[in-house]
């Protein structure tokens, strides 16, 4: 916080400009969200006429949402995405907690070497094609595991968790050891209960990543029954765009055009629902990562 000296006229002008600029930024961030929501609830013909400018629904209707929930592929995608988020995040958390806890202990011979091996993968990777070929040779191509296992640990999240475990006083661990507890007992009985807030942060990170990911599914999944929501969304949003421009006058097609707004809403609402939590915890995560990253 800058100290206030005297408010000279030029400083007043700066303050006004600053508030105006920041308000504009907020407006520009919010507008796409408002527009998409309004358009999804409007009569498709009104949306056509609006020229991309809409702040509230015109010709309110819910038919597009009915269309969304009647679309089998959207439902399949939704179901698959939930599966990937739940199973994927669970695997992420188990492995990340194990790795982070083990690497946060002081007297573990070889710890630093292992840490180096892990951190090196942040800066150098095999690349898209070798990774693809390995996963194919492991037999997980076109399999649900292909979008879960290769992404089981994020080094960044591991570092966040590890920093948290490092900050837990050693005395807690030592007194448990005197009582004869082994490292597994210590982890599950003492460390994990203490680490719930940071597990929540990391879990949310992983969950959002699974929810939003599409590249991995694009590379590894061929069977449409395995597609997550993002791939279906991509088909709806991107692949019809040229046809959409051509037959913009057709009313049935107009509904199909409107479908994309409703699909965006349906696919993004869950993220926005957890957003208040994300915001609270994530900022903390960035800070921890920043200290050690």
């Amino acid at each position, binding site marked *: 916080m800058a100290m206030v000296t005297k408010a000279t006229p030029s400083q007043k002008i700066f303050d006004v400009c600053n508030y105006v600029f920041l308000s504009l930024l907020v407006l520009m961030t919010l507008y796409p969200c408002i527009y998409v929501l309004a358009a999804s609830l409007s009569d498709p013909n009104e949306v056509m006429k609006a020229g991309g400018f809409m702040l509230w629904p015109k010709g309110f209707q819910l038919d597009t949402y009915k269309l969304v929930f009647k679309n089998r592929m959207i439902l399949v995608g939704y179901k698959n995405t939930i599966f990937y988020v739940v199973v994927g995040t669970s695997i992420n958390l188990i492995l990340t907690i194990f790795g982070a806890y083990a690497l946060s202990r002081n007297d573990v011979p070889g710890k630093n070497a292992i840490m180096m*091996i892990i951190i090196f993968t942040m800066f150098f990777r095999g690349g898209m094609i070798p990774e693809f070929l390995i996963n194919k040779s492991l037999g997980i191509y076109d399999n649900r595991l292909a979008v879960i296992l290769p992404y089981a640990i994020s080094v960044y999240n591991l570092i966040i968790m590890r920093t948290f475990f490092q900050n837990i006083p050693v005395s807690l661990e030592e007194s448990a050891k005197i009582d004869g507890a082994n490292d597994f007992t210590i982890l599950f009985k003492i460390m994990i209960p203490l680490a719930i807030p940071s597990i929540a942060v990391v879990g949310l990170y992983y969950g959002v990543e699974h929810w939003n990911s599409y590249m991995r599914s*694009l590379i590894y999944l061929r069977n449409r029954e395995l597609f997550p929501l993002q791939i279906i969304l991509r088909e709806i949003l991107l692949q019809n765009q040229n046809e959409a421009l051509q037959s913009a006058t057709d009313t049935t097609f107009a509904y199909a055009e409107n479908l994309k707004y409703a699909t965006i809403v349906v696919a993004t609402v869950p993220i926005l629902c957890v957003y208040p939590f994300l915001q609270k915890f994530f900022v903390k995560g960035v800070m921890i990562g920043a200290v050690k990253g």
Partner: protein
Amino acid sequence: MSSLKNDSAVLAGKQRTDSKHQRLWLKIVQRRYIYLMLLPVLLYFLVFHYFPMIGILIAFKDYSVKYTFWENIFHTPWVGFKHFISFFESFYFQRVFWNTVIINLYGLLFTFPAPILLALLLNEVKNMRFKKTVQSITYMPHFISMVVIAGLVIDFTSSTGVINTILNLFGVEKIQFLIEPEWFRTVYIISAIWQEIGWGSIIYLAALAGIDAELYEAAVIDGAGRWKQMTSVTIPCITPTIIILLILKIGQMMNVGVEKILLLYRPTTYETADVISSYVYRRGMIEMQYSFSTAVGLFNSIINFTLLVSANQFSKKFSETSLW
């Protein structure tokens, strides 16, 4: 006599190392559960990170789908730098290389400083509620999926979209932003700023919050106004943070987010939009030229790694801030 002495000295030394080994072994046994926890973790990094690094070897071979992956690695003949040479000699090399460089330079010039600017502006806001609101709202786009972002970009830049509507008000003719190649980079950079400006500012705001208030007091006593406080206290204090993030950014220089490019580019914009990673995707995943595309990918990784190391060295030398 003297040899006997030596022998006993050697023996004593051996015992010392023995007990050292024993102590180490004891420590490992005591910590056996820790190693048990590390086992799946190490297995993960071995299989999904280090195996692909071995897989890079196919860049120097002719990958054949007739053989398994490991047969390709160990039993097929070497072809040397054939794939690299054919990449360097191809028409695409110049195009994808320079497109990658240019889009990243733009990123460094515009996307990178934007959050710093936002943090500095937020730092001048005295109304805490206003500040918090701006923060909460501008962080949000970071969590929206790239597919949705691309969908929004396509919709907003379309001929009936809001941007063309606004331009029309000022008498500008309709622009086909995603069809005309000269607009691609602008669209790419502006949407990136839109998505990441808020989120990127968090780390700088944290650095700003950590500045000792006494520094400002001292500056005020010296008669510094707000502008002077910013240039002589605020900015020097967040410079280490900026440098670290800059090094990281430079280390990622040649990694353009392939997701976004694949979602937004189309054959009419390849001229400016096709970058190394999207080229690797097309040649590797669609045309299945595994060895060639691995070679292109390796070329990219090597540049990246070199940039990261040199940026780090450079910074170590001139600013005492570095990653390692």
